[in-house]
């Protein structure tokens, strides 16, 4: 990370990317902190982001059913001939180059956004690594930072703390809340119906093969207070109880003592019989913001 020209060490990832853009860097930037992740650059332009915090282009293509598993396997097997997964996929007619570019671009911005929700502790560059799939020629780092900040601002219109909301499991829709689902778009409905009180927005994104930001946006807009819904007309029952509407309890509130809907032991000591059921508890109340001091970076 040192550079011999005597310039100052970059303060954060956006300024690091700006510096690498000026240098025309080609290679990978491995970022640590939170789940971490890797940005892939060519001539300083960002072509891909891979992170556990958001679905990769591969996840988006496979989980959404856009490309079937056997076709994917076949494309991988053909890698020896084409030497390039993108060409392998487009060459077999599994996906058009335009579609692939679009999916890769969406994954790139989503990955950058998801990584920015967590504090960054460090980074190092590795000129040798290449991404599985990428959207070359790549995006200007300045535009990436701008879009990430815009996404955070958009979510903040609905949520008091984006990072906090993103880390929390999404409570299931209550029985009464189901009636209000008709008033939502099909995509939002799908997201809400997959919520089980265990999955975080990130987990839902992986389960659905969609981006973390679109999932967060759907959840935020469906929350009471979101999109002016609560103000305009009473929804039969809140879909996401009070998460956005109630203030967070101060740190130190009994967060750990409030159980999520949890499996009930089938029998202690002995052999549990059959599958135990998750009690159909209501959505958990907002838990304390132990991480209220969590730095929320405004850009990757």
């Amino acid at each position: 990370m040192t550079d011999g020209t005597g310039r100052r060490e970059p303060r954060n990832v956006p300024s690091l990317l700006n510096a690498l853009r000026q240098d025309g860097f080609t290679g990978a930037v491995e970022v640590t902190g939170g789940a971490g992740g890797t940005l892939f650059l060519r001539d300083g332009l960002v072509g891909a982001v891979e992170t556990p915090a958001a679905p990769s282009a591969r996840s988006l293509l496979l989980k959404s059913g856009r490309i079937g598993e056997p076709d994917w396997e076949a494309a991988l097997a053909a890698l020896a001939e084409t030497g390039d997964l993108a060409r392998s996929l487009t060459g077999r007619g599994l996906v058009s180059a335009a579609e692939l570019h679009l999916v890769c671009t969406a994954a790139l911005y989503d990955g950058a956004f998801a990584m920015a929700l967590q504090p960054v502790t460090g980074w190092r560059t590795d000129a040798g690594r290449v991404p599985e799939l990428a959207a070359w020629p790549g995006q200007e780092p300045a535009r990436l930072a701008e879009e990430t900040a815009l996404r955070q601002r958009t979510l903040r219109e609905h949520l008091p703390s984006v990072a906090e909301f993103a880390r929390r499991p999404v409570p299931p829709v209550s029985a009464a809340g189901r009636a209000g689902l008709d008033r939502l778009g099909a995509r939002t409905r799908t997201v809400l119906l997959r919520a089980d009180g265990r999955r975080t927005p990130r987990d839902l994104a992986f389960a659905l093969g969609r981006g973390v930001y679109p999932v967060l946006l759907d959840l935020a807009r469906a929350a009471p207070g979101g999109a002016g819904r609560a103000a305009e007309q009473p929804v039969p029952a809140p879909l996401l109880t009070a998460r956005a509407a109630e203030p967070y309890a101060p740190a130190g509130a009994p967060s750990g003592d409030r159980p999520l809907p949890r499996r009930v032991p089938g029998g202690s000591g002995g052999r549990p019989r059959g599958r135990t059921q998750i009690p159909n508890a209501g959505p958990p109340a907002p838990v304390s913001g132990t991480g209220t001091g969590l730095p929320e970076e405004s850009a990757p």
Partner: protein
Amino acid sequence: MKNLWTRSRLKEFGVKVLCQVFESEGVPVNALETVLGEIHSATGGPEAAAASGTALIDAATGLTYAEAGDCAAAGSGHDVWRLLALIEDGLHRAGAEGELESVTVTARHTYHLVSVLPRQGGDPVLLSAVLDRAHTNPALAARQLATAAEGLFA
């Protein structure tokens, strides 16, 4: 410079072929920009005016994937997304069934057409076009855009 050369070469091919050869020239070209350029130039002709600006925007996030021409009159991708989200929310609240297909905004001098292009296994994409009102048949232009966009995400 290099990009221009590649694109002019690529123009000789059909859109689908375009998609597949875009990298074989050794110069990476944004495949979406190339395809959008094709769609952009598909408007116009004797009956309908050419679009002054065309953009491909993510319907779920407002992210602009590609732009051709001057899109300033339509606002940013995020502005277009907000407009559509507002209309969609209103429709759903009013109890409308089904998904939004397109929106035409008529301003004093321009039409702003936004079509929702569904994608298999993914969030839809918005095709946004700004057209000169005095010289445009909006229905025809919408049709031309839809035809040009057909098969884009095949």
